[in-house]
């Protein structure tokens, strides 16, 4: 296959794109600031670029799923984001949908894995 790696990268990015909101909302259940989120997701094995996360946080805030506060008590002021009640509700629903989809997809794949020997 031509450009196997490029096609794979493309598909994996597409897959992860849909999960980004879920992961970021999950992390924001604790107050967190942008760079902390970059680092923690990297450590947990779901790395996202800073230039993706920062605009995403703002979008989620505009949509009312997150709110933010500048913490100026430190030498360098930081903008902390935290999930809103509306965001929490949204997160729970998205999480349930993801779990359901994940289960179904697994089932579909395993069914064929069992019948086909490649």
């Amino acid at each position: 296959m031509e450009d196997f790696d490029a096609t794979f990268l493309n598909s994996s990015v597409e897959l992860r794109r849909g999960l980004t909101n879920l992961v970021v909302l999950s992390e924001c259940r604790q107050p967190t600031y942008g760079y902390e989120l970059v680092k923690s997701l990297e450590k947990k094995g779901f790395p996202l670029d800073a230039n993706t996360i920062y605009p995403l946080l703002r979008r989620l805030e505009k949509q009312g799923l997150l709110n933010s506060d500048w913490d100026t008590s430190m030498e360098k002021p930081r903008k902390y984001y935290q999930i809103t009640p509306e965001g929490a509700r949204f997160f729970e629903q998205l999480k349930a949908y993801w779990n359901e989809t994940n289960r179904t997809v697994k089932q579909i794949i395993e069914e064929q894995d069992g019948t086909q020997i490649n």
Partner: protein
Amino acid sequence: MEHKLIDRYIYAVTRQMPKKEVADISRELDELIASMLSERADAPGSEDEKVRQVLTELGSPGELAREYTGAVDESLIGQPYYSLYLKVLKIVLFAVALGLTVSLLVSVINDLPFADPDVSMEWFLNEFVEWFTSLFSGLLGAFAWVTIIFAILYRKGVKVDVVPYDPDNLPEVPSEKARIGRAEIIGDVIFATIFTMLFIVLPNINIPIIGMSEKPFPLFNPETLVGVRYLLIAFVVTIILEAIVKFIDGRHTVRVFAAIALTSLVSIATALTWLGNPLAINPIFGERFQELTGFSIYGFNGQPVPGFGGEWASLPLPLLIAIVVIVAASILEVVSAGLNTFQSRN
């Protein structure tokens, strides 16, 4: 963190953003860059190098700004406007090209130095260049206007009445017989172009007869051609119209049938008016032909053609045959188009 490059970077990102967001985003980016730099505090290298590394890692300001504004606004004309835009653009460009060609054709014919049989190639080239430049600027203008209007509609989100999709409205797959191939349409256009060149644009040198006289002379009488030129133009316009309708519908429809009927009607009228004139063939040709072969081209070697009455009987025989063929072919075409339309509707 005080650094000129950082300021320039943040300015470049936020330059096009709404004022009320600029301060907040600037502050946040400043914090992000500071965090990324402090992570590199113990790494070797100068401060300048580190700043460059961080700003490179963040990607171009344009990309980052687009992430902020959201990718939705990235296109000039997005769906569902884009499909409609393409459709309208095609029709408008087609109409402009046709309109400009016809109007320039008319003006060329009016400017044509008919009195002078030696229409120079230079004069003709000039007219052609003039046609080409006005066509180019006309199409460019039409393209710009349609694009601007649709860009505004898209930006403002104006509701355009796109016919809502309904599976029942899908056109039926035309039968092999009902389809109109591209070759047929291209054939029509090529015929119209050649016809226009020979008989409308260059009447004085339409089909040069060489060797029968000291000087080459046109087979068809230029004066007669000039006399019926508006009929000839109408004939060409109906052929082009027919080609457009065929192109849009791509099959035998009532509209295509109407266009074919109109073209046939005009072609019969043209044949009777132009070729029905005994002077349509250059009289010089008739004279030389008789001198060389002893046969007269008028009537049946000078005698009235049996079966035809009045002036028709003494027309030049080739013209009479041409008229009969054209009239018969036109009637046949209308009948066959009618049958095709009727069949494809049932």
